[in-house]
């Protein structure tokens, strides 16, 4: 499976602050998926990005796919305690069958 570097590994923010996690690949990706895993829970699909330069929004979450399709980001505006969890970017190349999860970014929101 395709590997990416996701940073930061951990992030603590005060409730109401913004949060961003980044994924970087050395090779061009076919698409990238984002998943969220709450503490003690299982990964839940958030979104998939396919097109170069694509930007998608889900309420306070903004997902971007880079122009070169080698990087992606997830930005959360005005974090809430419900945003706590680990966010995984999961890349896929055109030929890869499986999705490869990295370590993700663990977000803690302090009330």
């Amino acid at each position, binding site marked *: 499976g395709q590997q990416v570097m996701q940073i930061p590994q951990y992030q603590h923010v005060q409730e109401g602050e913004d949060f961003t996690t980044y994924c970087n690949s050395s090779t061009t990706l076919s698409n990238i998926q984002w998943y969220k895993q709450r503490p003690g829970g299982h990964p839940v699909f958030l979104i998939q990005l396919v097109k170069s330069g694509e930007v998608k929004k889900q309420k306070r979450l903004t997902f971007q796919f880079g122009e070169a399709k080698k990087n992606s980001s997830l930005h959360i505006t005005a974090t809430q305690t419900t945003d706590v969890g680990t966010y995984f970017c999961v890349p*896929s190349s055109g030929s890869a069958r499986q999705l490869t999860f990295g370590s993700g970014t663990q977000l803690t929101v302090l009330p």
Partner: protein
Amino acid sequence: EAGVAQSPRYKIIEKRQSVAFWCNPISGHATLYWYQQILGQGPKLLIQFQNNGVVDDSQLPKDRFSAERLKGVDSTLKIQPAKLEDSAVYLCASSYSGLGSTDTQYFGPGTRLTVL
């Protein structure tokens, strides 16, 4: 629509014992995945089935782990004998086809295994 079902939810065994996990995917989903998630890490794919055939088992420790999906629906994952380092959450996921790289995976609640 019912989600992915897994049982048991928790299991505690002693090392060298055997254990089996069961997964029932979402109805109509051809592809089934088993992942191992060690605390603090992301899920690691153990095996991927397409209907009742194995697509990828390159990361399955075959000396002790086995999995089957005989009728292309539900699946079992077995560990025999268990080691301390097998303590983890075992996640089952399914997707509609799995043939393309754009398939969304739906995860079950997982089985938390503790090996003493």
